């Protein structure tokens, strides 16, 4: 507001006498008392017009900040986060599917082949849209790593297949190499994309809902209203006319723009917070759980492929199981907590129950494999049936995916609604500020003309 006051105390024409230091109210008072009424009117007119324009600029800037935050949430960071999750999902599933296709021995099942191909196609599609959405954000580097690594991975898997179909054990070595690339480079990059997009989403959502700028705008509106009120009171005392139409129009425009801003900010904030609390927050927690579950599933298959080569994969399974839960401070329990009250809550709880059953089935698989019943162990993992590890995992993954999809809808609906609240607001605020400025000019120039 200092700027506005300075503008008032800094008249457009050079003052004939020595000016006191501008920018303070007592100085302004002395300055005004020293002048004739027309000069004071002229000064007031310029001051009010400038003040209205500054208000318009400030309001428009703050609205554009919020609108761009909301736009970023809906248009960039949320799709990017989703793409990152989908890339991870697809790649992790491709890894597990390629592994279990080898596991089954003999000719690879057609269903497994199709699933692998669909996974790769999906990963490529999401990689492309994520690259478009990422622009120059930090995720771009990880996306470049993924784009470069994916063809290498598929090349190694196809080499593995070709050797496998010739009946050569070299195929298994290529599969191990491919899987090492996937787990060592590609999956961590996909995880980073998601994490970076989530951070971006939090920042953008904060920008669209943050309170400090809204409070600044409120303070500015209060000051403007006070100045308009004082100006009209002063005019009334000087001229003894009750209403000045120009200033009334300006006041009405100020009230309208303030109401519009307040309602828009309030409604958008509510929508965007809802989108986060019952949308993107549970989605992110559920996605983290799903990613961990997929990793454990790949471990289960790879342990059987390595046929006891070493127990690194089984050790990893146990680590992931510990992280996934359910239990205090585990991914699944966190996801269930985050999803509470959202449409995905039911599926999230079902996932937590299924996870426990899956671990039990996994232990059966390990017990069979450790006691020389490799074939039976493989059957439990690769075929479906009651109590089969493969079936239970599919159910776990399905529950998590369903919960993610349900909360995704909540997010999109509310985030889009929150963003749309800002439609026209920026232009509206500017137009109203121009009306205010015009009203002030017109109202005071009418009075000025009476002195001619």
């Amino acid at each position, binding site marked *: 507001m200092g700027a506005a006051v300075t503008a008032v105390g800094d008249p457009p024409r050079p003052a004939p006498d020595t000016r006191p230091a501008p920018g303070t109210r007592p100085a302004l008072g002395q300055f005004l008392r020293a002048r004739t009424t027309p000069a004071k009117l002229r000064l007031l007119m310029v001051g009010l017009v400038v003040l209205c324009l500054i208000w318009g600029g400030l309001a428009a800037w703050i609205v554009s900040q919020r609108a761009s935050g909301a736009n970023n949430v809906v248009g960039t960071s949320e799709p990017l986060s989703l793409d990152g999750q989908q890339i991870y999902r697809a790649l992790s599933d491709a890894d597990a599917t390629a592994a279990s296709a*080898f596991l*089954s*021995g*003999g000719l690879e099942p057609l269903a497994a082949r199709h699933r692998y191909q669909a996974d790769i196609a999906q990963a490529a599609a999401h990689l492309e849209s994520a690259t478009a959405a990422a622009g120059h954000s930090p995720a771009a580097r990880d996306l470049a790593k993924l784009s470069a690594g994916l063809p290498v991975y598929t090349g190694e898997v196809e080499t593995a297949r070709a*050797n*496998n*179909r*010739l*009946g*050569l*054990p*070299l*195929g*298994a*070595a*290529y599969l*191990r*190499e491919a899987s090492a690339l996937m787990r060592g480079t590609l999956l961590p990059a996909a995880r980073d994309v998601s994490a970076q997009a989530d951070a971006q989403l939090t920042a953008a959502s904060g920008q669209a809902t943050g309170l400090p700028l809204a409070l600044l705008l409120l303070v500015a509106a209060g000051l403007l209203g006070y100045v308009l009120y004082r100006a009209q009171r002063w005019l009334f005392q000087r001229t003894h006319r009750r209403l000045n139409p120009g200033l009334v129009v300006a006041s009405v425009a100020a009230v309208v723009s303030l109401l519009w801003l307040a309602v828009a900010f309030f409604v958008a904030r509510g929508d965007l917070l809802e989108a986060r609390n019952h949308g993107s927050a549970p989605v992110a927690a559920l996605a983290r759980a799903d990613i961990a579950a997929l990793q454990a599933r790949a471990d289960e298959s790879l342990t059987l492929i*390595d*046929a*006891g*080569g*070493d127990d690194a994969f089984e050790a990893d399974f146990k680590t992931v199981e510990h992280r996934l839960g359910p239990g205090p401070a585990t991914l699944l329990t966190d996801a269930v907590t985050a999803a509470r009250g959202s449409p995905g809550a039911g599926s999230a709880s079902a996932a937590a129950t299924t996870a426990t059953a899956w671990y039990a089935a996994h232990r059966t698989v390990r017990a069979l494999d450790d*006691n*020389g019943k*490799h*074939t039976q162990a*493989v059957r439990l993992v690769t075929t479906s049936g009651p109590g089969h590890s493969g079936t239970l995992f599919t159910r776990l993954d399905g529950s998590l995916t369903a919960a993610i999809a349900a909360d995704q809808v909540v997010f999109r609906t509310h985030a889009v609604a929150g963003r749309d609240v800002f439609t026209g607001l920026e232009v509206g605020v500017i137009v109203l500020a121009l009306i205010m400025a015009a009203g002030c000019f017109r109202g005071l120039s009418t009075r000025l003309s009476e002195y001619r």
Partner: protein
Amino acid sequence: MKPPAWLRLPAVLLMTAAIAAWAVPGSAAVTTRPAQHPARPAAAAAAACDPTASLRPTGPPQVARGSFMAKIRARGYLIAGVDQSTFHFGYLNPLDGKIEGFDIDMVHAIAKAIFGNPNKVQFKAISDAQRIPEVRSGAVDIVAHTMTINCARLQLVDFSTVYFDAGQRVLVESNSRAKSLADLGGKRVCATAGSTSIANIRAASSHPIPVAVPFWTDCLVLLQQGDVAAISTDDTILDGLAAQDPWTKIVGPRFTSEPYGLAISQQHPDFVRFVNAVLQQLRTNGQWAASYAHWVGTPVPAPPPAHYKA
């Protein structure tokens, strides 16, 4: 690729003598991992070591009451630590998902001697580096895994009599000019971790750069991708790798001798004698020759003769 049959027996005898002479420095080389126990008594024992001499069988294979074989029979299956990636010796056949090969034939013969059924076996695929720990921990009853008998290993496990004679050579891509390790100084040469081959590469006077991987097929992946210039290990293993890639060739002569034995825990001398009895049957009843012809090819040499401790 193989020396003719008439050369094999003298070669074996020569090599057996050579091994005895080579045993002391050889064992020192393998045990030089930052010595936790500067084992002087072990070195003294190694000096007197005759690596290929094993325990004499007490007769035809018989499962005596209270023997280790009786325990295995009570369990219902034999547990064998095997390779899953060495074509023709121990490999997971992708076509049927079964582990097959020359080593695997030996295991089936032992299972048949215990159970009367060659298929009562649980195969546990292990890497080269896991062979000794798996035997010593009792996780497996026996290891059949292209495993060279030497005095250093005899400190840790027992071996059967020699059931196969191999020797280290070099595999390169077919356009390579290298003829032996001598031409591969400064080049990357692959072998599995924990194998005698990697120790031999490390010890080569031309100073190739040893690259250690878990499985032999991993070496072929690296060779095909141009990450290593050569693979150097037993000719038996190299044959299996060359069979998977027609653009490779095996070059140079055998420059080591690698007599293969089945590794058994030192806790079970009765099982060593039993296995030696089984191997002796295979040598004489034509099964050894049949396995050789099936997995390695013809002409079939005479099986390595059994050599027992005095």
